[in-house]
């Protein structure tokens, strides 16, 4: 199994370290020629979605990646990656892949002073969750499964081949969410 990591900007090295610890092969996607390599899954890391969105388009990665996601390539987006996949952004007109039926609020908790860490459930397992200027999912379509939520806010979800978290599992030592993603790929 090989994972492609979008490595345009942000915290992709942290995902690489998790994949290393789980013994999974990966490569970085920085330009169009990288897409000729075969991948079984795609990770969209944390960072700034506007920066990644601009680079996706300038480097002509946007359309081919969207096609791969639409064709069923398993994809895991954390934070900015979640924003890249969202169909609708509540407080921003700049939208990206729009492949996942979720409505998202950007910087939903506030500025850096509002960043926080807490323990909560992903599915039925309690894990540490780190929120950095994080978004949350305001509402989801009928086919979306909610995997984490608190106070009525949806913080992790899955629709078919797409998995998203508003928090950063790659910044913790807990590999639950990554393992869930690897299972999605195996059971594809």
């Amino acid at each position, binding site marked *: 199994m090989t994972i492609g990591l979008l490595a345009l900007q942000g915290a992709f090295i942290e995902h690489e370290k998790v994949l290393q610890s789980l013994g999974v092969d990966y490569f970085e996607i*920085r330009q169009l020629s990288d897409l000729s390599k075969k991948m079984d899954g795609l990770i969209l890391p944390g*960072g*700034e979605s506007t920066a990644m969105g*601009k680079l996706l388009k300038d*480097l002509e990665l946007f359309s081919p990646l969207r096609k791969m996601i639409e064709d069923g390539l398993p994809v895991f987006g954390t934070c*900015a990656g979640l924003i890249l996949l969202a169909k609708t952004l509540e407080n921003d007109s700049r939208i990206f892949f729009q492949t996942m039926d979720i409505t998202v609020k950007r910087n939903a908790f506030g500025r*850096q*002073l509002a960043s926080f860490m807490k323990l909560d459930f992903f599915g039925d397992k309690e894990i540490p969750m780190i929120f950095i200027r994080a978004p949350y999912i305001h509402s989801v379509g009928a086919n979306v499964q909610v995997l984490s939520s608190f106070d009525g806010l949806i913080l992790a979800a899955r629709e078919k081949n797409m998995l998203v978290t508003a928090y950063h599992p790659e910044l913790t030592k807990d590999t639950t969410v990554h393992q869930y993603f690897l299972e999605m790929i195996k059971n594809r």
Partner: protein
Amino acid sequence: MDKTRYELNKELAQMLKGGVIMDVTNAEQAKIAEAAGACAVMALERIPADIRKVGGVSRMSDPRLIKEIQAAVTIPVMAKVRIGHFVEAEILEALEIDYIDESEVLSPADDIYHIDKANFKVPFVCGAKNLGEALRRIAEGASMIRTKGEPGTGDIIQAVRHMRLIQSEIRRVSSMREDELYEAAKQFQVPLDLLKQVHELGKLPVVNFAAGGVATPADAALMMKLGAEGVFVGSGIFKSGDPAKRAAAIVQAVTNFNDSALLAKISENLGEAMVGINEEEINLLMAQRGE
């Protein structure tokens, strides 16, 4: 500051990696920077090149300007305070700034003490010329480091010198025997526990960006190849002929710093670069402020 808050602040810097942080002096420039792919903006009244030209005492920006820039963009907004001026920092914290740069670009407010950054909830980035300075700033609570370079010159030589020195000192510390670290901590004038972290990690315990004198995509790529985890561009963008185009090209250069064919393509026809001043022509060396 509690440990969790410090970790969260270091983690915001991790999200900025591989990105370009651009100096902007108004909301309109902030929007241009964001649209060009900046991962954050630095709000200031005058870019370093103009601070140099105008002279006089340079201070924290007008809070109104900072608020306008905060309202204009969704990416993190940073702002500068004078070295040691903890009240300016308290004001920026009250504005909920995303990152404070305790910066040698402004006139220092204190020639002995830096701000006790551990007392703040908002994160700080500080400049450094060498490993000792970097670790002293981290000991004071900085959660991100940048090279000092020589701001507002468009001359990359000082940023290169600082990055090379920091990286070579890190390599030297990494290769030491553990019992040599006690003496090294004395020589570097830094806390032993931070030096031990450098020894184990083979890098600084926080994110390290390049800053000061970056004017072209090639400059940005050079700094990435020398070990920077991202780049600050100050005067280089809005002092050039076509800011939006140059900004977007520098963003691409930081992502694909290893691809010289792509660098050749994006370096083409960028319009005039900032004029720049050579190192030996400068009257004021900002990098010497704050050790």
